[in-house]
């Protein structure tokens, strides 16, 4: 066991060399159990559940009943239960993959219960051959998998508010999730339909009650878009687009059309409601950013974060998520002194393009007030901005695409608060 005083500090506020744990096998002092309960004696050497046969098999496994609080929290429109959102509880999760039942949702008018035998995909417009595909046909096409995040363009929008919202990380930043999506490269079907020269945009439409539609530039469609059929190995859940979802890696969630039923090749965008009145960012000038598709680099410390409490001084592991819609995260820096000094966190391998990347950093907390921050840097050199920088550039009324550095204030009692700092 290493003495805390021996630990190599790499930045202010007690941040430690990120290789500390590997090198020295240091044990966290963040105690979930106290020493007394761990050492409590029992009459038997067997715990209760060791004294009888366990439960039988299950057709579909469920989380432990002790994990009932690890759920999506939902928020619906008072007049339309299917119009709203649910958040991924990032503050209760580790690693990089979102279980399917916890993937965030944004529905504009509910989850359609689609019979896959009656679902069709139509490709038409500026193509030589307008084509229809049913699901049986699509399932015969060559597929590929890609791990990628989907983030709602409106994620983290509470960050624009004048006062820092005091809520857990998942209900602030949890309209972002990460899955392995498996499906057909969109380019394969577009090639089969044979694009005409004037095809420059593609209008995608869903088979839900709101007939969600958006316009996508053709270059992106031909580059890395997928017609996904599977999510994390099983068929996509109804709330995430069953039986067919358009995956647009790195771009705002709204263009990842769920329940996809139609692709219209055109020479211009349709100017749909969700690319004009919504999902555009009003700037201080009164003009708005439009077609701001890419989700820029973002990071958030999930542990420790609001709602969690540091249990006495000692060594803690700072852990969080970083992602960028432009490619790989190349570096995440962490500060424990409000941004005066920064140290590089360890990135969990593999680091994949347009995918959640887990970062970790050991931290020796000695009971002082502190401000924790993380900032992501992606392979294009983009550095996640401080909040004030973002607001100076965009004002406070853009609503969408908030990706500023998140600051968690730590009190001397170890309580966490969301603060604005820089």
């Amino acid at each position: 066991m290493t003495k805390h005083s021996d630990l190599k500090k790499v930045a202010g506020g007690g941040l430690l060399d990120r290789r500390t744990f590997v090198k020295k096998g240091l044990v966290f002092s963040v105690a979930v159990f106290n020493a007394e309960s761990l050492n409590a004696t029992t009459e038997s050497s067997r715990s209760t559940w060791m004294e009888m046969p366990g439960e039988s098999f299950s057709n579909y496994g469920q989380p432990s009943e002790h994990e009932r609080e690890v759920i999506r929290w939902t928020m619906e429109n008072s007049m339309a239960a299917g119009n709203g959102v649910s958040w991924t509880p990032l503050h209760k999760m580790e690693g990089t993959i979102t279980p399917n039942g916890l993937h965030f949702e944004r529905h504009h008018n509910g989850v359609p219960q689609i019979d896959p035998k009656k679902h069709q995909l139509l490709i038409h417009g500026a193509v030589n051959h307008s084509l229809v595909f049913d699901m049986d046909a699509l399932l015969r096409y060559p597929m590929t998998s890609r791990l990628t995040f989907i983030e709602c363009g409106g994620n983290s929008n509470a960050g624009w508010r004048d006062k820092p919202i005091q809520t857990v990380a998942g209900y602030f930043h949890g309209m972002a999730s990460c899955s392995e999506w498996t499906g057909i490269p969109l380019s394969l079907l577009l090639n089969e339909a044979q694009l005409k020269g004037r095809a420059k945009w593609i209008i995608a439409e869903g088979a839900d009650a709101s007939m969600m539609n958006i316009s996508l530039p053709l270059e992106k469609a031909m580059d890395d878009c997928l017609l996904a059929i599977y999510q994390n190995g099983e068929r996509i859940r109804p709330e995430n687009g069953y039986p067919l979802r358009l995956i647009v890696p790195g771009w705002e969630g709204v263009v990842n059309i769920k329940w996809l039923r139609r692709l219209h090749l055109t020479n211009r965008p349709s100017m749909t409601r969700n690319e004009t009145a919504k999902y555009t960012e009003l700037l201080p000038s009164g003009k708005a950013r439009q077609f701001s598709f890419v989700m820029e680099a973002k990071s958030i410390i999930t542990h420790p974060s609001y709602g969690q409490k540091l249990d006495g001084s000692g060594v803690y592991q700072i852990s969080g998520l970083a992602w960028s819609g432009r490619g790989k995260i190349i570096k995440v820096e962490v500060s424990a002194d409000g941004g005066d000094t920064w140290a590089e966190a360890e990135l969990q391998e593999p680091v994949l393009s347009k995918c959640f990347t887990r970062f970790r950093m050991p931290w020796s907390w000695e009971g002082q007030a502190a401000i924790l921050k993380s900032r992501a840097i992606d392979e294009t050199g983009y550095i996640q901005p401080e909040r004030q920088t973002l607001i100076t550039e965009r004002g406070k009324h853009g609503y969408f695409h908030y990706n500023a550095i998140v600051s968690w204030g730590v009190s001397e009692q170890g309580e966490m608060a969301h603060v604005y700092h820089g």
Partner: protein
Amino acid sequence: MSIMVNYCRLKRFLFFNKRIRLLPILFLFTVISACHSTHEKIVPRLGIPASQELIQQWNTDVFSNGEGLPAGQGTAIAGETIYQKYCLSCHGLDGTGDSADELAGAEHSLTDNPPDKIMGQYWPYATTLFDFTRRAMPLNSPGILSNNELYAVTAYLLYLNGIIKQDSIMNAENFDWQKSEFQQGVELRHLGTFQERYTSIVQWRIQAGASFEVSVSPVRRLFFVYSGEGRVNGEMVHRHSAANINPAEAVVVEAVSELTVLSIGLPATNRSAS
């Protein structure tokens, strides 16, 4: 002999000229790439030719130049009745907003704090309004409105925003108002403050750390305002209108209209997650 010489010269040439030496490698690469792209092209080609009937039936896309607008027409006069029947319960009197977005009656311009992103100020094309209404509205029975009704209710919303006259006819030829007027703003009517507009404010004090579930009767006219210190755990408000959340943290909940607190604690829908 001459062949031999030529071969030797060729060999020397190939050996000393680096570019040429790369040729076999390039050739191999080309073969591999060709195989690769050939492999990619092996698809079952199961697309069935789509009939014109299917395309016409499914393709409801409308463009800002009017392409895709159907036959039919309407005026704001006819549209007001349709609005009252299908839209008022969520979008409020004269489109001023309720459980759903405000559509008209802005109190603030786009450069004010806060701005009102109403149709007259923030929706750049009338065609977008028609397209969205046809696709998605009303939420409880989308697709119910005829083309004439859609033109009429669109005209009514444009009229509420001061963009067209009450008797202006909207149809597939007469829709292009955005270029001349949409961006210029409209004369704004002062609607009063929140308290002035809605008098039946109900307060419910909820202890910090608790979350809660509420129902409201009658269901329309639901607004929540948070005030005070501390906050409601997780800020979860079940069945509130996301559009009308006041950003401040809080323990006091004010609701317009009658409010019933169903539970204090974790909301029921989230509790039954097993």
